């Protein structure tokens, strides 16, 4: 059994989902890469922002 940290799990999730989204939601390779990177940044960025928000609320 592997036991990743929460952030590692988020990054792995974002990586795999972004690859599939990029390939399936766009037509050309260049746009696929750009959209995949955009999704990855949004997944990771929103996780970090929400984590800070919850941290500040909990204080």
């Amino acid at each position, binding site marked *: *059994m*592997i*036991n*990743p940290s929460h952030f590692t*799990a988020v990054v*792995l*999730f974002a*990586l*795999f*989902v972004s*690859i*599939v989204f990029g*390939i*399936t939601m766009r*037509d*050309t390779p260049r746009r696929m890469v750009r959209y995949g990177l955009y999704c990855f940044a949004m997944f990771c960025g929103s996780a970090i922002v929400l984590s800070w928000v919850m941290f500040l609320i909990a204080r």
Partner: protein
Amino acid sequence: MATPPIRNTAAGPQAGSQSGFVYLPLIAGWLIPGAGHFLLRKWYRGALLAASIIGMFALGLAMQGKLYASAHDILDLLGLVGDLGNGLLYIIGRAGGLGADSVQVTVADWGTRFIVVAGMLNVIAAIDAHNLRTGRKAL
């Protein structure tokens, strides 16, 4: 009134000239991740899709994620539907007794979500292969 199928003119003559069973990439892509794209000779896309979906499914199992076997309530039913999206991976996993029977640690809960999401991504990939086959999406 029936809506005529939307055809992408950018697909070119190659999309319309393919013969054979039009749902084959859809079914193959559902059963084996990436197989629909391989059938359409989209080797890199198929390989990336297969690596992503199989990797996500395997990571879910490695995290002791649960493979839904029956539906006792609506959430179980949704989980089962998501798991079934994995096609043969789900059947092999169930036949091999892989996955936890119940979620007991936090990581196992993440693993369960990884498996369900892998199934849904596989369905998206299979539909993408079908769209490529029918010409709705440019080859």
